[in-house]
């Protein structure tokens, strides 16, 4: 009885990578989601020409920004943009994967928003 339940859980985990702890997959590239961040609803917008996924965390803005600055630098991403008045706003590229990332404060929490 336990095995099928366990298998079902594993299956559910891989069905919803967006909501799995730890990563978001963008054009085949696994991008870490800072620990503790919870996914908001993924929206498809502009008639399917762009997707947006937003996560919220209680971690401070500066911590989230430093996390992604280090990640992009340490993993060979080309970066356009950086810190701005709202927090952090970049477009990044590595291989086939290109996306934008915004990190800002909303309602007292840190928002991490991917657009691709």
């Amino acid at each position, binding site marked *: 009885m336990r095995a099928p339940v366990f298998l079902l859980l594993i299956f559910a985990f891989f069905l919803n990578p967006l909501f799995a702890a730890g990563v978001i997959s963008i*054009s085949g590239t696994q991008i870490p989601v800072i620990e503790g961040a919870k996914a908001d609803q993924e*929206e498809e917008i502009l008639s399917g*020409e*762009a997707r947006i996924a937003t996560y919220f965390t209680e971690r401070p803005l500066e911590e989230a920004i430093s996390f992604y600055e280090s990640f992009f630098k340490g993993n060979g991403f080309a970066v*356009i943009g950086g810190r701005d008045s709202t927090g952090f706003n970049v*477009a990044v590229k590595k291989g086939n994967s290109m996306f934008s990332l915004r990190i800002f404060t909303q309602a007292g929490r840190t928002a991490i928003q991917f657009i691709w």
Partner: protein
Amino acid sequence: MLRFFFKSSFILLIALFLSGCATTFNPATGRNELIFINSPTEVAMGHNVREELLKNHPLSKDARLNAKVEAVGRRLASASDRQDVQYKFYCLEEKELNAMALPGGFIYVNSGLMRILNDDELAYVLGHEVGHVAARHIAKKIQANMAYQLILGVAFAGMGDSAGSSAQNVAQGVDTVYNLVSLGYSRQDEYEADRIGVKYSFRAGYNPYAALSALEKIKKAEGPDWKILGYFRSHPFADERIEALERAIPKITGAEP
């Protein structure tokens, strides 16, 4: 009735959700707007699109015109509500009476147009193009007409790891952006750029009524075909724009409440 209520509430909820997630306030327009293309990406796109522009439209070698467009442009740039891009002003050696703004604040005026305008009138034309940049008309038009991946492709053209990026796709993307910009904007965006342009030229110390004389001069210079040539092909609805500006200028300058 109930169905209508639920449908409207659903649409409102989606709109509120989206507006909470990604909108930013634009001081040039006074509105919260949903724009995915951030300023550095817009500037990177502009850099790559200007390469395309300059292949077919050479920069002017006239030192007087270059000095004038830079001097007037600098004052307009200081007056803009949008200061997160570095506005750059250039004169192209082209007879056609035209001006355009590329993504990221690159503004071009043709020598043919500069030669018929005085400084105040030039300030209106440059202010109008700065207005398009400040109001994010260019970014909005691009994001409404291009896939987001293609937009990023244009921004990253020539950068980073290009493995897997089709050079042909990127070149097509650059062409698409250039064509979108060349074709001009909606009537609403043109009116808005006119108002913002006059506001900025007035703020910069120029005569706001020069906007009217500039448009009349351009109409006269283009002759009977003014509706299909040069400036008004890409900036249409001249008579309506002149009328709208006549009403708007007293409010912009504070002469009327």
